[in-house]
């Protein structure tokens, strides 16, 4: 079956039909683990009617270049679509890559209007170089979840279950954000694990589970939304989970400051937050 995330996430996804999650089958498949990840999920903002109140003051136009963390790829594509519906003369152009690479590019002078980072470390690099217009702002949170084989044959329901020595567990390397968050969460829960591999990025963790090479892996909830049917998600209880805050900022030397401001406003708007929520992120 498909990703069985917490109910609100699933409902959101089905409602909007966004984030390339295919429809089909009964929507309310009983989640094996039903803890809701986050009460703050902007479930109220579901009826995201385009052109609501969010960006009322004037339309922007031209190209808006956004340097965005790779984990935002699917979500931001939907964001851009909705944004363009509001601002027909504006085009959002993305450069998706690892946040570290993006930060380096910006510092080295890549012309961009907005930076959406997956962590504060890289945003700080840019900010310390005096390249942001205002104080960076958290626009979305991501949380960790356990990706397991469809059907959850090992019956994973908490981080503690990952300590099973029979289990092939993969994590992201501690050098990358997802890996350090996972390590943090495991440490917080007092769980000692013996991972088979420390993958270079979180997508590789997911693909190892999808391919059946790993029994479980710790990924972002947002990753699970677009994952294949071979995988399902197990929600990590709030108490054990870690919140990854994504900061966004307009860039000082960007050629389209109005566009940057409008884009950031849109991302922070109810509509933008709803789209991000559909894609597995946790709104702010």
């Amino acid at each position, binding site marked *: 079956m498909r990703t069985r995330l917490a109910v609100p996430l699933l409902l959101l996804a089905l409602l909007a039909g966004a984030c390339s999650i295919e429809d089909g089958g009964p929507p309310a498949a009983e989640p094996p683990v039903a803890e809701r990840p986050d009460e703050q999920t902007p479930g109220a903002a579901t009826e995201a009617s385009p052109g609501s109140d969010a960006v009322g003051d004037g339309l922007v136009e031209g190209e808006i270049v956004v340097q965005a963390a790779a984990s935002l790829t699917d979500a931001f594509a939907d964001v851009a679509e909705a944004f363009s519906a509001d601002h027909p003369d504006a085009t959002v152009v993305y450069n998706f890559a690892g946040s570290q690479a993006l930060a380096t590019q910006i510092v080295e002078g890549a012309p961009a209007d907005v930076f959406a980072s997956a962590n504060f470390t890289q945003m700080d690099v840019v900010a310390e170089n005096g390249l942001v217009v205002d104080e960076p702002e958290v626009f979305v949170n991501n949380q960790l979840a356990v990706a397991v084989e469809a059907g959850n044959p090992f019956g994973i329901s908490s981080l503690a279950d990952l300590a099973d020595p029979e289990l*092939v567990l993969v994590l992201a390397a*501690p*050098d990358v954000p997802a890996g350090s968050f996972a390590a943090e969460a495991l440490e917080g829960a007092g769980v000692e694990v013996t991972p088979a591999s420390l993958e*270079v990025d979180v997508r590789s963790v997911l693909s190892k589970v999808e*391919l059946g090479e790993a029994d479980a892996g710790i990924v972002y909830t947002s990753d699970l939304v677009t994952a294949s049917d071979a995988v399902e998600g197990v929600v990590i209880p709030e108490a054990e989970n870690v919140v990854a805050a994504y900061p966004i900022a307009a860039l000082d030397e960007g050629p389209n400051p109005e566009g940057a401001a409008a884009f950031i406003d849109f991302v922070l708007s109810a509509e933008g937050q709803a789209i991000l929520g559909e894609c597995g992120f946790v709104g702010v």
Partner: protein
Amino acid sequence: MPDTAPAAAGITSADPGPPRPAQGGVASSRPRLPSAHVVLTCLAVLALALFLVPLVGLVARTPLTRIPELIVSPAVVQATRLSVVTSLAALAISTVLGVPLAWFFARRDVPFANLLRAIAVLPMVLPPVVGGVALLLAFGRRGLLGGPLEQVTGVRLPFTTAGAVMAATFVAMPFLVVTVEAGLRQADQRLEDAASTLGASRWTIYRRITLPQIAPSLGAGMALCWARALGEFGATITFAGNFPGRTQTMPLAVYLLLESDAQAAYVLSLLLLAISVAVLVLLRGRYLSP
């Protein structure tokens, strides 16, 4: 027509006239040559710069004073040790299997030889990540052979050093195969005939006649194979994953260290660079002279 270009080169031919007799053709075409040379030289320098500048950049950015300290850091040592082990293992397997394969292609009348050869050298042009995926689908837990293999022998390849060796072998062996095959084709087979008339068995002939003849090719093939195995990244990360001391080879370590300790990554890169240069020096007869 003929005398427009020379001005740029600063050499003007004496005769301005349009008639171009046979000898005049030589005279008026002469000024063109420098300009062509200038253009070609510029492009050549550009090409050289493309190779040189990154090397300079790497050396320049490496914290030379920190090298002694970084080079003995656990991460670097562990990755280096693993890389040496896996690349040498891959080289050994490639030699034991690759030389017979080269012989098979060079000496046997193989049906569909070109097709089989194309399959064998495919990893040379295949993106290594694709190779890694293919290896997973074949030797992974759910793979064509991986499942039965694990059931029967209990051996699991993904996430193990054996998997890293396999990935390295997969991408590196073709270099040995093509080089040795070329050597076998160049070798004078009549010397083998001569040896057989002296009563030498096939094994004796291969050992005492063929092998010495292809020794230069074999050496070059082994050096290339080893260098490729040492630099292997894509197939390893996909098939064997990344775990320090088990599957995290030097290139993987470089990639990850860039995120956390860039200077250590530079040092490791410099180390790999030095090894590559050493291999080139080893092969100098083959690639450094025209």
